[in-house]
């Protein structure tokens, strides 16, 4: 076998009861993501991608079907066990960064480790510095979130997602708040992490991003309508270099 399954989704349904109506957000979704894949999950709003993201992120559990994260069944887990699972296995990157205000980059990156009692204070700082180094922010460790640009803030958020050495990085429209140039920078960073062997799931409605990933899953009305590997992965770094130079 060699390469293990990070995500295994088997005929997952997720229904929400809103008033007297039942909304079927996911209607039988199955797929497997192996270690080292960079998968984009696309779909328009209402396609069920947010619901799928919440399930993959262990923030929610399926109504029926099975979800295995790193071969651990999540469906029957209670809130506390899923919290611990998120803490150990998942790194989240959000559209709006979600950094703590008035808090330095270092402290923001350290945050997940605060909820892991087995990590000592010195190990915490060491890991956080290494994560900040990995996203190229070694010179910004003591900057507060409000002193940084959007791109820098998103890098801090990515460092925070890396700090617990997760099996899965889950990005939710991670370039949604950024301009084209900065988006490329962030995508280049994701590609670098991918190249280093990280497993990344990037949920987006922007079709352009699919060209930078290794695989693209498309959702519509709660079902997968397309799932294909990308033979022609574009380099975000090259796309960045091809852009006209910034004025002033």
């Amino acid at each position, binding site marked *: 076998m060699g390469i293990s399954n990070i995500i295994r989704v088997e005929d997952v349904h997720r229904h929400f009861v809103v008033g007297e109506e039942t909304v079927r957000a996911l209607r039988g979704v199955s797929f497997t993501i192996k270690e080292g894949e960079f998968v984009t999950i696309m779909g328009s709003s209402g396609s069920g991608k947010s619901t799928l993201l*919440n399930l993959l*992120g262990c*923030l*929610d559990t399926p109504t029926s079907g099975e979800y295995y994260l790193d071969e651990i069944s999540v469906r029957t887990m209670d*809130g*506390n066990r899923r*919290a*611990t699972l*998120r*803490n*150990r296995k998942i790194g*989240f990157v*959000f559209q709006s960064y*979600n950094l*703590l*205000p*008035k*808090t330095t980059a270092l*402290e923001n990156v350290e*945050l*997940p480790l*605060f*909820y*892991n*009692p087995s990590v000592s204070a010195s190990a915490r700082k060491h890991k956080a510095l290494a994560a900040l180094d990995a996203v190229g922010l070694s010179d910004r460790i003591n900057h507060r979130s409000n002193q940084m640009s959007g791109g820098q803030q998103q890098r801090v958020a990515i460092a*925070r997602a890396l700090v*617990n050495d997760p099996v899965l990085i889950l990005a939710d429209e991670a370039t949604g708040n950024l301009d084209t140039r900065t988006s490329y920078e962030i995508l280049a960073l994701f590609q670098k992490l991918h190249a280093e062997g990280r497993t990344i799931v990037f949920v987006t409605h922007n079709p352009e991003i699919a060209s930078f990933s290794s695989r693209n899953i498309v959702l519509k009305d709660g079902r997968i309508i397309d799932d294909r590997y990308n033979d022609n992965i574009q380099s975000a770094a090259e796309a960045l270099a091809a852009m006209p130079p910034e004025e002033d």
Partner: protein
Amino acid sequence: MNYGNLFKIAIKAIRNNKIRSLLTMLGIIIGITAVILMISLGQGAKSTIKGEISSIGSNLINIWPSSADESGARRSAADMQSLKMSDYEALRREARYLRYISPSFSSGGQAIAGNNNTPTTIYGVNTEYLEIQGLEILKGEMFTDEHIREIAKVCLLGQTVVDELFDGDSDAALGSVIRFNSLPVRVIGILKSKGSSAMGSDQDDIIIAPYTTVQKRVMAIDYIPSIVASGLSEEYSGQAIDEITAILRQQHGIKGEAKNNFRVMSMDEILDTIDQVMNTLTLLLAAIAFISLIVGGVGIMNIMYVSVTERTREIGLRMSIGAKSNQIMMQFLIEAVVISVTGGIIGILSGLILNGLISLIMTMTGSSMSMLISGKSIVVAFLVCTFTGIFFGWYPARKAARLDPIDALRYE
């Protein structure tokens, strides 16, 4: 769960909102300061009053005719005159738990010497009165049993009377003849000053004379208004009272369930009564101060509630990166407790400082009142503000813990 980390997180959150946290603390600071000062004031007043009474001697026993029954209805005139000379003599003869005993005839009137006159009180007593009341002689000497037998027109003056009649010149006073109302009496001694009593009455504004003199020449009565005595020691005051009661009941022919027509009260009991009254007063003061502490607690609740709403996304983030709901709860609870306990500590310190200042002012103005900080009140204040933090932080913290991470992350 790692409380150390949660504590750091809570401290960080407080430091991120310095002004707000400080204002929230202010409620607690004021509340605790008020509680400390009020209790200190109450306890100080209590100890001052008790101290001054104890200086008289807490084994002092007073016997009065009982002028009212327990329902407060006034009794007959006969009851008001129920103590007779024979009662005094019986007590003197039979009571084994008493060391000293003296009848006490007191009568208000005008003391006159030359051109000076002053309203004062004359006490008709026996030679043991000095011991009973802890009085000492400054100049001259005490009257004798012979003076008592002879119904002699002699007296001793308190310092205030000397001041009023002789402009403080005790040498001039000694040996002179003054008049109490129309009765001329010779001054054979001057009493040492005792200062004012806890109740504020001037203990030096007295004249003492042989009881026969006051009874016959001033008051012209055949009963005794009251008897004062001192017990063997404070620990026997209970037995002394029982004994006096038994002797007097026998003297008065009171049997079975019939009520006493006299009252016996030891200084101990008076002290107990004062204790109760002052404790009630202290409690009342503390209760008023407590209200401000509760207002402070509501302030904490209010701010924590706003804080939870304002930090909904932060809570969502923390949950998404692995915070369990009870850890979120603890974070906010710790935050509330840290605010209230810090406020409490500052309140205790400011209470101590203000207490010192007030004491200083009291000393400088010569007030006999004092402030008394009790360690107990500090411990109680500390516990109360910890409890306040937990109590008023609970609801907001639970609200935070019950947030759904998905909704919290989307909160705008």
